[in-house]
């Protein structure tokens, strides 16, 4: 009996999905015209997975990303993130979820202009009420992790695209989130640097981080372990990525 309970706890910790999406739909109504952006989507993502969500523009992948990122709520359906039900939360509760559980990496980096790299990394921790000293130390650590120890006090305009995106990754890591949500993270970056960014994601995944990548480039999706194809608001294909690129070190 005792053994069983412990076993169940183990199951809860390791095998309960990090993300559970069930019968999720998003319908936009504009002047009586209904547009279905997502149509009855159901999938799970387990802890430690490295998933690419792929699809052409207009497929609904951005809408899905917004919902997964707690930036928007679904019209119908349920969404659990790390054991918390997200669907019916109010704006401030969503802000809290975004702060604690989601690390965003955007295509356009979205760093605060004229603000040093370390300050940028510290922003989420300020909103998470982490004291300044601890937040500074963590920011320093994460910037070192993405190889920017020597760029702590550089402003975004003094950094290359790849370096800016690495600052953004450090920022995404700062609150130790449940998932890292990267929206076309290499879209604005020269291909030589793009591989570098993808290697960072691979490393983070090796360390156990759950990473969801939104992209339309097969080249980039190839780095992941699982690819979900979306088309017209529905899942067209959900497969393990057998021919994933090997990490070259």
């Amino acid at each position: 009996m005792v053994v069983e309970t412990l076993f169940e706890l183990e199951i809860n910790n390791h095998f309960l999905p990090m993300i559970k999406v069930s019968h999720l739909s998003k319908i936009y109504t504009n002047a009586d015209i209904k547009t279905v952006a997502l149509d009855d989507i159901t999938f799970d993502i387990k802890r430690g997975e490295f998933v690419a969500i792929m699809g052409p523009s207009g497929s609904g992948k951005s809408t899905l990303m917004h919902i997964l990122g707690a930036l928007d709520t679904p019209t119908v359906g349920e969404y659990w993130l790390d054991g918390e039900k997200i669907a019916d939360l109010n704006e401030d509760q969503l802000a809290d979820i975004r702060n604690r559980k989601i690390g965003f990496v955007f295509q356009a980096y979205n760093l605060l202009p004229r603000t040093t790299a370390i300050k940028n990394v510290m922003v989420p921790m300020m909103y998470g009420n982490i004291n300044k000293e601890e937040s500074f130390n963590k920011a320093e650590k994460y910037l070192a992790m993405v190889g920017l120890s020597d760029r702590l006090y550089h402003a975004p305009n003094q950094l290359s695209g790849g370096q800016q995106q690495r600052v953004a990754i450090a920022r995404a890591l700062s609150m130790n989130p449940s998932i890292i949500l990267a929206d076309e993270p290499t879209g604005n970056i020269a291909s030589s640097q793009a591989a570098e960014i993808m290697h960072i994601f691979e490393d983070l995944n090796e360390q156990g981080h759950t990473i969801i990548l939104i992209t339309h480039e097969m080249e980039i999706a190839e780095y992941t372990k699982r690819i979900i194809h979306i088309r017209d608001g529905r899942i067209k294909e959900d497969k393990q990525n057998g021919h994933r690129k090997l990490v070259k070190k």
Partner: protein
Amino acid sequence: MDYQELAIESFTTLVLNKVRTGLAMLGVIIGIGSVIALMSLGQSSQQSIENQIKSLGSNLLTVQPGAPNTGGIQGAFGGNTTLTYNDEKAIKSSPKITTVKNVTAEFRKNAQVTAGRNNTNTSVSGITPEYQQVRNISIASGTFINDGHLLGLAKVAVLGSQVAIDLFGEGTNPVGQSIRINKMSFTVIGVTVAKGGSGFQSPDEAVYIPLTTAQKQVFGVDYVSAIYIEAKSEQVMTQAQNEIGYLLLSQHRLTDPTQADFRIMSQEDILGTVNQVTGTFTALLAGIAAISLIVGGIGIMNIMLVTVTERTREIGLRKALGAKKKWIITQFLMEAVIITFIGGLIGVIVGVLVSFIISKLLSLTPVLSIPSILLAFGVSAGTGIIFGWYPAQKASNLAPIEALRYE
């Protein structure tokens, strides 16, 4: 919420946008500065006038020609011709008058006064000898005008201390010298002790000559500008006012007091009227200044709104990173309040400096009332909150998706 961190961030943002911040601040600086400078100007001129009136003594009555109900403001001297030297003589000699200690009459008009190559346009007062007691004039050197001068239409003059300096320079004694008033030659027989004050009927800036000489030889008139009465004590002021009133009515062959062609005012009356006028004046100045403060506030709102639009992406990003509405509102309000706080501080300094400079130029004593400074400062901080609220609210209501998408 870490307000200190937020304040540092807001401050940094403002420093990074120097021009925008400076422009927003300028409105507040001008607003607060003008409130303080104008209030101070109003108050110091009020006080200066008040002091001069008070210095004339509390048992002084002034009779002026003209109807009593034509409004409270003293008309220009010489505007009405209904009061004469005979009225003064009547007050002095009538047995019905029991409460009066001294009476004097004055005819006052500006004239060109020259001495050698120096000349000045100043007030020339034709007076009777009692003027010295009634108006409390002290002689620094020489003598004052006496009855003999009055009867003999003597061409003698007593100079106000400032006039003496203007005409003869500092350190020389003009007694015995001659001056010309309207091209008539007068002998200087005395100089008054400086009393200070300026503008409003300053005794330092007058030339005193016998009333008879002034009326008949210099200006060619038969009326007086005012009759001054020194009552025996402060307690009999009302009685004195009544006695004189009835005597003058009968002198002017009037029966109905409402038809009176003169008015009798105590220093209290004058003070009251003057305070009413200067109070209105001060309020008017404050009103004008308050408008500029509101304009400054609108300037802040304008710039904050532009800022919100300009920083839509930043706001979206902050929300994506976990900023709650409260944070965004506080951040933008903080920026507005910092602008008004620093602007207000500079405004206070500018206002104080300006009021000192103006007071110096007008030789007034600067009056800086701490309440008005605090009020202006409070208003400026309030301005920041009021005019910063709408833009801050607008910023906090941006949907993070829309804001992130905003190019």
